[in-house]
């Protein structure tokens, strides 16, 4: 599918004016550069000791790169529309903290890992395909989905972080209510921070 899409894009580029193609390439290059910077930050964070140091490194990148509001909206769906501004702000803040704390917890020790960009989709500005390669040669595919230059979903070997979040959060809201969701998020943040 991606291959066919790529062939289609190349065909369109060859048959029509070059300007849109050039713009797309430029956007594709900038999104790939942004993801590469994020990966460099994760590698640097893995070499830090202490969750605070890792969080300090990662927090700025998450703030710049991730569309936390988009993630928040999708995660709770229709519930979002009935939330007060304060509730929305609190939810977004907790979500941002959870994303940072989760990255800091999972990328907690450097053992020769590296990130590689997949050649497939280099011209796209809405998808960046990468791989996390471990020192034993095994790897995990990490696909970043972007909207307006910001990441709203990360798919690891076919499992979408946003889809999991959506299923998880909506289930809690439906069964226990929105305030319970906020309470669960606070618990998970504390759990991730105590991981050292």
């Amino acid at each position, binding site marked *: *599918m*991606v291959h066919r*899409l790529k062939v289609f894009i190349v065909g369109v580029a060859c048959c029509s004016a070059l300007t849109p193609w050039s713009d797309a390439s430029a956007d594709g290059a900038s999104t790939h550069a942004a993801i590469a910077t994020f990966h460099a930050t994760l590698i640097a964070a893995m070499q830090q000791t202490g969750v605070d140091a890792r969080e300090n490194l990662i927090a700025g990148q998450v703030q710049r790169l991730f569309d936390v509001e*988009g993630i928040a*909206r*999708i995660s709770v*769906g*229709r519930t*979002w*529309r009935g939330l007060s501004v304060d509730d929305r702000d609190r939810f977004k803040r907790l979500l941002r903290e959870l994303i940072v704390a*989760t990255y800091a*917890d*999972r990328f907690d020790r450097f053992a020769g890992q590296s990130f590689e960009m997949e050649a497939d989709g280099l011209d796209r500005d809405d*998808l960046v395909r990468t791989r996390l390669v471990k020192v*034993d040669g095994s790897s995990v*595919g990490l696909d970043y*989905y972007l*909207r307006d230059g910001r990441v709203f979903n990360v798919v690891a*070997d*076919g*499992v*979408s972080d*946003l*889809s*999991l979040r*959506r*299923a*998880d*959060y*909506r*289930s*809690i809201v*439906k*069964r226990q209510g929105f305030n319970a*969701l906020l309470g*669960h*998020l606070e618990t*998970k943040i504390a*759990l*991730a921070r105590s*991981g050292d």
Partner: protein
Amino acid sequence: MKPYGVVGFCCCCLIASGCTSLEGEDYGVFDPYETNNRRSYDVTDSVDRAVLVPVARGYRKVLPDWFERGLSKMFQNLRTVDSSVNGFLQGKPKSGGIDFARILINATIGVGGFFDVASRWDLPYQDEDLGQTLAVWGIKKSRYLYVPFFGPSTLRDLPSDVIRSWVPQMLFGGDIHWGVSVVDLVRARAGALAASDIRDASALDPYAFTRDAYFQRRRFLIYDGDPPLEDFFSDFGEEDFGEEDSSEQDEASEDASVEVTD
């Protein structure tokens, strides 16, 4: 379980899967038995935490990484027979052929599959199974089942899971297969420790989290690691990014989505 028992059970599941195949045309979450599935999940999770997880952690601690990897590769090699057959059944002769070559190479040069020589020769494991074959043949949307002491599955995938768990008995027979099956179970649980640790760290509702992860993973495998992107974006819908005062139509479409996914 006797061979005819396995065949009979699989036939029943296949007939039931066939009867329910018209319930939907995508691979989305479909969980009409959620109440019973949640009960099953709770019981299985308690046993898992009390028995299997400690044993799996011990197994991981005692065995050196290289031995653990080799053992996992041996069991993977046994199941490559199933993968190869299903590659052909899905009309993918190249996939079936690669797996067939893997069996021959790894069983001989790879010392019974302990060393994965085939992967080094650019013949990667294709990871096909009967559930994927049935999906390719048209049984797309299938009822979710959390089978007690077995784990997540669907009516469509269950025959495949049963066949795969029956492989040691089929190959080793006699009393020895029980020992092999136990090693296989512990090995598989040890391999899933990282995933269950992520679930424990991230999931607010572990049942919903596990269910969604299962359906996503199956979709990924059915599409051989390249699921269509269009489906992915339409799953979330434009209204989720839109302004607050969305139309009635948006509300209706989201209700439908919640009905299926929740």
